[in-house]
Structures are given as structure tokens and as C-alpha cells.
């Protein structure tokens, strides 16, 4: 009898136990007002704008919606956004893993400085991030004259956009991995090396499987930011239609030209991307927690 009771209690979550006991249960009024406040907030500030995007996008019908997306400038913006993400995300993946590995598993001089530097893009306004590149590569900048002599275009061209995207998305993977790797310690790696595994095999067979879910999580966030970045990219892009506009910039241009339906149609693409990211993120979190419990 006692055994079955214990089993039932173990099966229930802590929250359920609090709910079922009068000693710990809150009055219904408190409970419902807190739920009402948070649901209202969620509806007004998150659900309503999301709904607005799709309603506005479809206000003039599906034909206008698809026409706005099929327009050459829009397609070019999609391509550029995908390109920038396709370059920035893998680079930051490699960098993030390398930096997290170094910081979490080794002691060295300047480690704190490296951690601070990784966080820099989080603390600096994206506009400043863009301006840094203008200062370096602009005509009046440090490398501007030399670049012009050799006919290399960085600013107001694709390389500038990619650079700005890399800068802004720099911390995502590393920040996700550092606490995870620090918590895991380096004993497993040491065990592998004592058993004769090379550094590469150790990384591939021991470290990487252990950080797999954290890494995927970091990459998803990194990708979402790479595709959605506005400020830094806006500064270096030059807004040349069909050439240097990413999706967020294209939305702004359309909106400024009073093409509301088209602007919201393109914006709905970004909103869909956000929803997809959320879905994948939830799945990864669920997988990670399942593996953690194992």
C-alpha cells in the first residue's frame, strides 16, 4: 500500500503536488488573475502583431501576395539573405566550437578577454557594428583607398553584408556551448586520450556527441539572427534594389514606398521563418532534455 502511494507521488510532478494540496494551493482569484494578465500580455504583444502581419499581407488577396514574393527584387533579397546566412552560420559554427572548446577545456592567459570579446556584438548596437565596417572599408576609411585601387568592393556590396552578419551573429554558438562544455568538464576527453585516441578522434567521438544538442540549438538561434538582422546590414548595404537588399531591408523599402500589402507579404516570410525556428528549437530542447535524463 505504502509502495503504491510512493510510486504515485514519484510519478506526479512537483507542480501537480503543490496544486493538489490545500496547504500549498493559492486562492483561485490569485491564480486566475495571474493567468489572465500573462495571457492578455501574450495576446496583445505577440499574437496580435503576428496575426496583423498575415492579415495585412493577405488583405488584397493571394494573387497580390504571391506577386509580391515573385517580384525579381524580392527574389534577389531572398537569395542574398540565404547567401549571407549560408556563409555566416558555418563560419560562426566553426569559430564558436573552437572558442568554446578553448575556453571550457583549457586555462590560458587572456581567457577573460576572449570571453568579453565574444560578448561584444551583444553589447554593441548593431548600427555601431555596421559603422565599424564603414570606418574600415569606406572610401574615407583605413582600407578604402587601397581597396578602390584594386577594384575590390566590400562596402555597399555582398562582402560587407556578409561581414556585418558574421559580426552580429558571432556570440550565438560560443555562448550556447561554453556553459555546457564547462559543466561537462574534461575528464571524458582525458580518458579518451589516455586510451590512445588522437585529438581529432577525441573531438569527433567524445566531445562533439556530448555537445550535439547545444550546438544545434546555437546554430538555430544564429541562423534566425543572421536572416533577420537589420541594423548592421542596413548601414553597410547601401540599399541597392535587386543587389544589396536582404529581406528585412526589402520590407523597409516597400513599406516606405507605401506598398503595404507587398511589405507585409515579404515580412510574413520572416515571420514564418521565426515560427519554423521556434518549432525546431522546441524539438531540439525536447530532445536535449530527453538525452539529459537518460
Amino acid at each position, binding site marked *: 500500500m505504502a509502495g503504491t502511494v510512493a510510486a504515485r507521488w514519484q510519478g506526479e510532478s512537483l507542480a501537480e503536488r503543490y496544486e493538489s494540496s490545500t496547504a500549498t494551493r493559492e486562492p483561485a482569484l490569485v491564480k486566475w488573475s495571474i493567468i489572465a494578465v500573462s495571457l492578455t500580455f501574450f495576446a496583445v504583444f505577440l499574437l496580435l502583431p503576428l496575426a496583423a502581419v498575415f492579415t495585412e499581407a493577405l488583405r488584397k488577396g493571394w494573387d497580390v501576395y504571391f506577386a509580391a514574393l515573385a517580384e525579381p527584387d524580392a527574389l534577389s533579397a531572398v537569395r542574398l539573405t540565404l547567401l549571407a546566412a549560408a556563409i555566416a552560420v558555418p563560419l560562426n559554427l566553426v569559430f564558436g566550437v573552437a572558442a568554446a572548446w578553448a575556453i571550457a577545456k583549457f586555462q590560458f592567459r587572456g581567457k577573460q578577454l576572449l570571453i568579453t570579446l565574444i560578448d561584444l556584438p551583444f553589447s554593441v548596437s548593431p548600427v555601431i557594428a555596421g559603422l565599424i565596417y564603414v570606418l574600415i572599408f569606406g572610401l574615407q576609411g583605413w582600407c578604402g583607398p587601397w581597396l578602390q585601387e584594386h577594384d575590390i568592393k566590400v562596402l555597399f556590396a555582398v562582402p560587407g553584408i556578409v561581414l556585418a552578419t558574421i559580426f552580429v551573429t558571432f556570440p550565438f554558438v560560443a555562448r550556447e556551448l561554453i556553459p555546457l562544455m564547462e559543466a561537462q568538464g574534461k575528464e571524458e576527453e*582525458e*580518458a*579518451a586520450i*589516455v*586510451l*590512445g585516441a588522437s585529438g581529432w578522434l577525441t573531438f569527433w*567521438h567524445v566531445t562533439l556527441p*556530448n555537445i550535439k544538442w547545444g550546438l544545434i540549438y546555437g546554430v538555430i538561434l544564429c541562423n534566425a539572427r543572421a536572416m533577420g538582422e537589420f541594423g548592421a546590414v542596413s548601414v553597410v548595404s547601401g540599399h541597392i534594389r535587386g543587389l544589396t537588399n536582404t529581406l528585412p531591408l526589402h520590407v523597409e523599402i516597400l513599406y516606405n514606398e507605401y506598398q503595404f500589402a507587398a511589405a507585409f507579404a515579404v515580412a510574413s516570410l520572416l515571420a514564418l521563418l521565426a515560427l519554423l525556428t521556434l518549432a525546431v528549437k522546441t524539438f531540439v530542447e525536447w530532445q536535449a532534455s530527453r*538525452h539529459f535524463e*537518460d
Partner: protein
Amino acid sequence: MERHFDGLSANGLIQTFLSSPPGTEVNVFCGIEDMSIQVNNINKRFGDFVALDDVSLDFPSGELTALLGPSGCGKTTLLRVIAGLEWADSGRVLLEGEDASATHVRERNVGFVFQHYALFRHMTVFENVAFGLRVKPRRERPSEAVIRRKVGDLLDLVQLGWLADRFPSQLSGGQRQRIALARALAVEPRVLLLDEPFGALDAKVRKELRRWLRRLHDELHITSIFVTHDQEEALEVSDRVVLMNHGKVEQIGTPQEVYEHPATPFVYGFLGAVNLFHGRVEGEHLAVGDARLQHGDAAQAVSGDAVGFARPHELEIVTDLSSDEGLEAIVARVLSFGATARIELYAENGIDEPLHYEVELPRARISELNLQPEQRVRLVPAKLKLFERKTA
């Protein structure tokens, strides 16, 4: 139960053991007198902290040696230096006579067992044990069939064959540590190094595993060093004990030697409960205040200020206060459970804090004495080990 290793060219230690019929004792090192591990003049600092201070040690082949000491004494650092996981600032590590100081960890061919097991959490038990074989260079790597057989034999050796498909998180602490040991043995290491192998286990499992490790070592005779801060564990399991303190070796000897003839006050105090008597040596007596305690050791070349050490069982209680033997003390508590009883006493000399003593007596003797709290008695040491008092 017969075991065959037809497919094997190399015939290493483990294989020799595994392929022999049960009951046969295999001693691969029989007759070889050399030292498997030697460390010469090892120094290691972490900033201002001296972890190892000119340590030189020889670990004979086939023996199980315990490195014993309080935390921070440098024992784990020494083990990691031998393994190659830590580099000494100066000094040499010799493995089977060859200088391994500059050899990379993965070429030293040592087995290392970690305190927290360090099993690969995403691999099954089988894959954990097979790891060392799978990562060998292609030309040395055994075939899949050989790996399967060898891992199976190792899992049988640690009596956990039925867990092959489980993940480490599904095992108990004791099982994990046995798997960690099987994994370390898979690569046929020259020496086996164990870093506080039972430190994370509860008392009962610890005792079982201790006995099991000793048995396993008696069968395999692989040169092993294990680090521990538990004196009982060290004395019970090892062939030899190396006592360390503050980065230095205090004493080396068999468990019996170090327990019965501690070389330094530190060793005496570390290896068990102890009573201290501060006084002056006067012939065959140690004068403690007004009391004169017979130290009973004429050969001891200690004179002047000295500290006498006695274990709780080396003290006798005399209730006759008119006797001039021993030191006056007051009974504080009598704890009688088990075969022997412990009596806690204190003495006041009017100057310092009261001094505390502990005496261990057989149950029969306790009922004979019928001691009451706050009763005045005299403490008579059967023998005293004298050390010179260091003037601070």
C-alpha cells in the same frame, strides 16, 4: 569454461589471463625484478602552491601501491604526472626503464581510472570498453570479431557482461567504476593508475569494490598505483603504502610497517586516532607536568622536549588514584557498542584548554571498571612513540 584467442597475434597480459583455465594463477612478471614505474626528482608548482616537492619513488612491478595523504598533498598530481595528463616542472618519469617524460599521454600506454568514472555518456557499455581498441591506428586495430570477443571477455572479467547494451547513466556507481576499469584494461596498459577510484561511492559499495579490486589485482598482477585519502582503504588493499604530505613523501612501507612503525608524527596521526602527550624525556620516562609516563622504548634516541604518541588501544585506565603511575584525567563519556568500548576523557592543567584523550578497551574490562562520568582516573600508556618536539 574454455577461452580461445586463435585470431590474436599479440599475446598481452589480459589475453594471457583470460585464455588460461580458471584457477590457474598467471604471473607474467614472475621473476622480473625491475621497476615498472620510477619517478625522479619531480617538482610541480601551481602558481605559489607547491604540489610536488622533489619527489622520487620506485613502484615495483606487479605490485599494488597506494598513494595516501590528505587532500592537497600532491598525490593526484603525482598520478597525473605519471600518466602524462600533467607536466612536471622538472624531474623524470620512467616507465619500464625508459624515460617517458617527453612521451605524449596516448603513447605512454597507461590505464587511468578516474574518480568520477569519466565514461563516455553517449556510448553503450560495450562501446566504452571497445573505444581504446577502435581508436588504434589501422594497422594495429584488431578486427571487429576480435574486438567483440575481447570486450566480451573483459566484461565477464568485471562480471558485468549482462550490461553491455546499457548506457552509463543506467548503471549504479559501483558498476560504472567496474566498467571504467574494464575500459582501461582493454588497451593492455603497462601500468594501471586509479585516482580515488572509490571516492564517489557509498560506504558499503566501497568496501565490496575494495575487496574486488584486490582480488582482481591478485589475478592480473598488473603494476598499479591508486590514490586515496582513506587510510583504511590504503592499508586494506595495497601491497605498499606511500604516505604524502605537503608535496613530500613522508614514509614508504607495507601497510603493517607504516601502521606499526610510523616514521613521522604526521604518519602517526594520519593512520588512525592518536593521543598526544607533550613533555620532557627523562630516562625511561616522559615527564608530563607532575606525571611521569613510562615510554618503554630504550632504543629511542629522542631527548629533551618531546611528544609521545599512543593509539587509543595502547592506553590503560587505572581507577586507583593513589598510584603514582600515569596521568590524571577525568572521564567525559563512555561509548560502548561493538566488541570494544571507547572512553573519552579530558585533563585540565589550569593553563590551556582542557586536553582530550580517547581510550579503547574491551567490553569486559569496561564493566569491570564501571566508569562514571566526571570520575577521576589515571591514564597509563602501555607504550609511547616519541618524536622530538619541533620548536615553532
